């Protein structure tokens, strides 16, 4: 698979190393060159320094041929904008974005961008640990429970 990852935070760096180690062609886009240290010395993929909302930077990262685009910056809106550019402009078949606001995560998932909401998943896991019960499915945890709908 050809994978473009935006954001070399902890998740971005871990995902890049994981997928590169499994033999995929990974390109990482990161604005801040200091963050690239997280990749360590063994990362076999490519790195592009630049703004991930800039179409020229995305093209340089090979988004036109990508099978998967993942937006993992610190900003929900930044991830959602990048994901929409990948999907609508470059027709990337699979697009995933990290979105920490549960409501926004749901809104965009309903519109075709697969969003992952750490705050929902984390809170559901902690609840299970509190009750000493086995974990449920990630899919279920990643959707907004009734208690959080206002």
């Amino acid at each position, binding site marked *: 698979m050809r994978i473009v990852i935006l954001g070399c935070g902890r998740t971005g760096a871990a995902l890049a190393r994981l997928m590169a180690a499994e033999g995929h062609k990974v390109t990482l886009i990161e604005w801040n060159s200091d963050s690239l240290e997280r990749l360590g010395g063994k990362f076999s993929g490519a790195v592009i320094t630049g703004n991930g909302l800039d179409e020229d930077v995305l093209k340089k990262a090979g988004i036109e041929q990508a099978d998967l685009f993942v937006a993992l910056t610190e900003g*929900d*809106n930044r991830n959602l*904008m990048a994901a*929409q*550019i990948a999907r609508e402009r470059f027709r990337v078949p699979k697009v995933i974005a990290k979105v920490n*606001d549960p409501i*926004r995560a749901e809104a965009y998932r309903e519109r075709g961008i697969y969003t992952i909401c750490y705050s929902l998943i984390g809170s559901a896991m902690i609840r299970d640990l509190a009750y000493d019960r086995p974990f449920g499915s990630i899919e279920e945890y990643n959707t907004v429970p009734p208690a959080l709908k206002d």
Partner: protein
Amino acid sequence: MYIIIVGAGNVGYYLAKTLLNAGHEVLLIERDKRRCALLSDELGEVVMRGRGDEIRIMREAGADRADIVVACTGDDEDNLIISQIAKWYFNVPRTVARINDPRNEGIFQQLGIDATVSSTNIIYHLIEQELETGEVIPLAALKRGNIEIVDVELTTRSPVIGKRISDLPLPPNALIVCIIRQDNAILPHADTVLEPHDSVIALVSAQDERLLRRVFAEEQSE
């Protein structure tokens, strides 16, 4: 009209004041506490603290009865998401987004934002106009960019000076809607004669803009 403005930087602040003076109902949403406190002292209850990209805040703001939502923060990604949430969740009839990086104009239109305003582009066109006269300046894009409202400033050397509007070889999908002459707006008819320094406001389909430009441009030896 009820207009919600998200982002109370200088653009949002002056826009709110202008709209209030024009008699509109305005709500200015700002996430920064200190900025909010400062503006509340002057504008009162018109200012609300919160994030315009959060559905809960927009509901509290009464976005479901807003006629227009203007997203004018300093970050394009925030302006995009604010506009989309206003449209999807609250069916706001018209969303206007400020664009800081002019290259984002295309993607905003592709993603369903009704109108975009790029001060960078406007200033660029004004500068360009100084260099190349007879420039057609886009003022706004409608219908996802398929129709544009443009402003043509006529120079003394424009080939249309002294001509009647009915005699202009306008492209099929272009309509002159207004002429600004010395700060007066004239609603033109077929017999209106164009003068130097007229500002011609026209509606034109995007594909005919180039043809419209040729009608007004002075002869240039390139």
